[in-house]
């Protein structure tokens, strides 16, 4: 069992290596994608400078905490897209019957599918995350917690978008629904959780788990809390197992479109 997991992780990183090498064949595009993504993310600083000129704090956060929140959102999204970009396009693969090439491989289908592509601009997101951490204040504790929660957040985000994508095994217009729900997670991630109230707040900590992957993780970096720490880890494990389970259940319903394609 352990050897199998080790093998799978090795294949996953090999896949990542070749994905990046393939994209690096055009160096100008490769670099512009990364640099412009950093600039793209940085533009939101303007939004927050204006908002904080109108009110001293928003949802209990000052600009310093918002930068950390932004950093966490960017690095979680970045890592998820670097390692598992195809999780964000799972619906399209299912609807168009493009899973065939993965079914014949002697590895876990779910992991093979989601790790088969890397979004290069996401490297810019990940770098931007750490730039934000630098602006917030870098200490050994902050770096360790930030890195750990980036990984945990990426697991939660990937699992969530995979579950949404897997709905296409059952729902006809699953791709639009999956896209919308995945975007919800990303849109909420960059605003302080305390501006939302009532039922929405409950949803953000359960069904759309942005509260767990972003708000709670940032709160732990600000004020360490052991109970919340373990809650986040357990939540990540549960949602990851759920993603595997739902994908495998759905896979039994999958029907090929006899589409000829190959992985180069």
């Amino acid at each position: 069992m352990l050897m199998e997991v080790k093998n799978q992780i090795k294949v996953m990183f090999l896949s990542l290596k070749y994905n990046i090498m393939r994209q690096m064949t055009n160096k100008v595009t490769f670099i512009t994608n990364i640099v412009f993504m950093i600039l793209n993310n940085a533009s939101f600083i303007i939004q927050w400078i204006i908002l904080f000129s109108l009110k001293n704090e928003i949802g209990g956060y000052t600009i310093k905490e918002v930068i950390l929140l932004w950093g966490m959102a960017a690095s979680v999204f970045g890592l998820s897209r670097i390692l598992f970009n195809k999780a964000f396009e799972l619906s399209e693969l299912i609807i168009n019957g493009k899973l065939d090439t993965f079914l014949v491989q002697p590895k876990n289908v779910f992991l093979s599918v989601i790790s088969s592509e890397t979004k290069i601009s996401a490297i810019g997101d990940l770098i931007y995350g750490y730039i934000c951490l630098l602006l917030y204040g870098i200490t050994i504790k902050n770096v360790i917690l930030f890195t750990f929660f980036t990984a945990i957040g990426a697991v939660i985000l990937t699992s969530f978008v995979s579950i949404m994508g897997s709905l296409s095994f059952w729902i006809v217009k699953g791709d639009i629904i999956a896209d919308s729900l995945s975007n919800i997670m990303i849109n909420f991630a960059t605003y302080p959780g305390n501006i939302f109230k009532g039922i929405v707040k409950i949803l953000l900590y359960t069904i759309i788990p942005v509260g767990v992957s972003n708000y709670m993780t940032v709160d732990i970096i600000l004020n360490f809390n052991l109970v919340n720490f373990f809650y986040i880890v357990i939540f990540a494990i549960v949602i990851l197992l759920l993603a595997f389970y739902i994908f495998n259940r759905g896979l039994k319903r999958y029907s090929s479109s006899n589409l000829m394609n190959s992985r180069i």
Partner: protein
Amino acid sequence: MKKYLYIYKATLVENLNYITNILLGFINFFVMMFVFLNLWEYIYSDNTQVINGYTMQQMIWYVLITEVLWFGSRNKILTQEISQDIKTGNIAYNINKPYNYVLYIVSKHLGEITIKLIMFIMVGIIIGVSFVGPIQNFNIMNVPFILLTVIFGVIINSILRIAISIISFWIEDSTPFHWVYDKMILVIGTLFPIEMFPEFIRPIIKCTPIFVVTYGPAKLIIDFSMKSFMNIFIAQILYLVISISIVSILYNKGVKKLNVNGG
């Protein structure tokens, strides 16, 4: 001109079949609006507070209108299809047809967004009226002027996006440039009226596409005056002339640079 009208009509009719897709696309719009509603409700301590000349009601209507224009006129044809055509060499099949490729793209784009934009406007009105009530002092007689600036804003936005996509003739992927344009419009143009920025930046923002694409039409809807209309409309005409010239120059230079391997 007749052939472009035909392309517009054909795309429009084709899109009537995808109403469900447009409706499902509203989920994103609702979420964004919900986030902004919460944000502005938090910033405005009470309904009567006025920040930089805007009441909470006006502010929410402003964001709603700019987001409607943004979501309603978004289209992958402008951001992805042109780049893909250039990257894959598919453009070779389009430029030797008896139409101008750029005008073909504009007609197709307008055909695709007409239904979507109308639906977004209707939904925007429903959300606005139900959450913050109707716009104060709105006069129905101003609608033709407002409509004119909305249409011009949408066209200018389309042409600027085409100009960005044409960069693909020189560098393979123009997507990063679209991000920068997107963020400029989204962050500066849709979330805040120009009056929210420090005074020294305002004249600079007035020179950017934000003034003619989002701020102008939205400002006229929430606070119409003939003077503002004339300012915005003249700026739009200037922008239209400049952006068309840029696209023509870039396209003609790019096409000469095109080198497609047969296949």
